[in-house]
């Protein structure tokens, strides 16, 4: 249905003087179509927002539900330091237009940053129902930890179920989490072989996505220098890209220590904070780092913690001149860091 249509066709290949007629010659639905493309391929919020005050017509059409519903995750990647009521309103507008990425993003922000647990969880659930894998996984983490409630609110079975649905969609963190749950019999009947299989699958998927990203951008240094991912197997691969909302959480909670003594997940790509004291698990070897989930723990082990993890006792001994040598501490790869299955 055309809302507006000019009867005279636009002059072909107009000169500059007539360009203003050209834009007016496009019917509304065509402009909306173009704006949908802009929003779905936007690489930052400004791509979409700058449309909104170009002129009144684009302002009206730019907030058309169809355009907002197609906004890409990157278009919604608000920086924590820029958070404002206006940003909040914009995300709400996107949520109302049916954008599940916005539902997930706003859900995470409300749950963790604004401490509005109920609203945050229900927004995430809205995305999860539409099979948004990160939302399913985040809800699983909340269930495993009983976040927003007490220790008794932990629901391991629910966590596993949500994890399984995310894993089925190929979500790497969920695959990893589920793999560990199966290996340990946590919230689900123990099945070491199946767990191992899932861990291998997680690794493979991660490798595949990194390779795919690499083939698109030939610059090897794009995501920073190669890190410990898969370094166990001699592969030097860069870190997977984090979701914008994890970056938001990370920035929001700053250095990770606020007055209330609540810690943050030590995995760099996570950003989740505790919602009550001692909610997260810590590395049993050194006790210096904490994680919201096994998945984060395993990933951080490979990326970073493996080299720096040192048992508390050993550290004390060495500082005392090593008079008690050889006591304590797990061997490399055991203890806090979980080992992944080998790639075949």
């Amino acid at each position: 249905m055309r809302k507006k249509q000019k009867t005279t066709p636009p002059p072909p290949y107009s000169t500059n003087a007539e360009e203003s007629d050209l834009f007016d010659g496009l019917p509304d639905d065509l402009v909306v179509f173009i704006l949908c493309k802009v929003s779905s391929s936007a690489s930052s919020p400004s791509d979409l927002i700058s449309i909104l005050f170009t002129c009144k017509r684009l302002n009206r059409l730019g907030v058309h539900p169809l355009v907002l519903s197609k906004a890409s995750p990157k278009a919604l990647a608000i920086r924590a330091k820029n958070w404002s009521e206006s940003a909040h309103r914009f995300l709400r507008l996107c949520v109302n237009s049916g954008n599940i990425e916005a539902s997930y993003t706003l859900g995470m922000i409300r749950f963790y940053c604004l401490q509005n647990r109920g609203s945050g969880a229900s927004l995430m659930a809205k995305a999860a129902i539409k099979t948004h894998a990160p939302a399913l996984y985040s809800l699983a983490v909340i269930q495993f930890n009983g976040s927003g409630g007490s220790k008794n609110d932990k629901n391991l079975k629910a966590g596993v179920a949500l994890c399984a649905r995310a894993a089925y969609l190929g979500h790497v963190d969920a695959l990893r989490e589920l793999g560990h749950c199966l290996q340990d019999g946590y919230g689900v009947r123990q099945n070491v072989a199946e767990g191992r299989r899932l861990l291998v699958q997680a690794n493979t998927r991660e490798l595949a996505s990194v390779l795919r990203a690499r083939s698109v951008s030939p610059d090897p240094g794009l995501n920073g220098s190669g890190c410990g991912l898969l370094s166990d197997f001699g592969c030097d691969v860069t870190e997977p890209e984090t979701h914008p909302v994890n970056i938001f959480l990370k920035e929001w909670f700053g250095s990770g220590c606020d007055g209330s003594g609540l810690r943050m997940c030590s995995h760099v790509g996570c950003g989740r904070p505790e919602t009550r004291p001692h909610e997260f698990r810590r590395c049993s070897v050194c006790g210096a780092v904490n994680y919201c989930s096994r998945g984060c723990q395993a990933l951080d082990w490979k990326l970073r913690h493996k080299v720096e993890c040192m048992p508390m006792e050993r550290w004390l001994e060495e500082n005392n001149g090593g008079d008690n040598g050889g006591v304590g501490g797990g061997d490399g790869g055991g203890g806090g860091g979980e080992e992944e299955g080998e790639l075949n």
Partner: protein
Amino acid sequence: MSNTSENPKPSSSSAKMTLKTSDNELFEVEEAVAMKFCTVKQYFEDEKDSDVAARGSTTVIPLPNVHSAVLATLISYGKKLPQSNAVADNHEEEETKKKERKKYEQGLLKNLMPGELLDLISAANYLDFKEGLEFFNQALADHIQNKSVEYVRKFFGIKNDYEPHEEEKYREEYAWAFEGVDED
């Protein structure tokens, strides 16, 4: 843009149709390609219903809203698309065809003026040429991505109908979105 009106050939394996543009130029196009323009397809099917004897090569389909240069580009793009009735190629052939198409697309977009792009979009919309519309709209979106407001205005030839104080208000309100936008 070169005019690619084809020379009339004796009836070959694929039927041809003639399209007439707003400046009275005639274009002979293969049926397979012309059928991608759904407006043409609709017209052709209506014609077929009303007069069984009339075949594509004798019917001239008028396109009063499309200029010849624009139609030439749309036709040449349509030809590069995988044909729906083509025999399935093996994987290698498909890959080479894809690469060719990408190179062609890049060459096409490189020298395109904003006015030309908007004309192409308008024409593709009129002809209901879905693949063309997708492609050119995406090209437009890619072009204005990460550009400042002034650039977008100049590109589209948009007149800013905001009062200075209104615009200032918007800029303040949406300041949270702006970081690292390049000027033209």
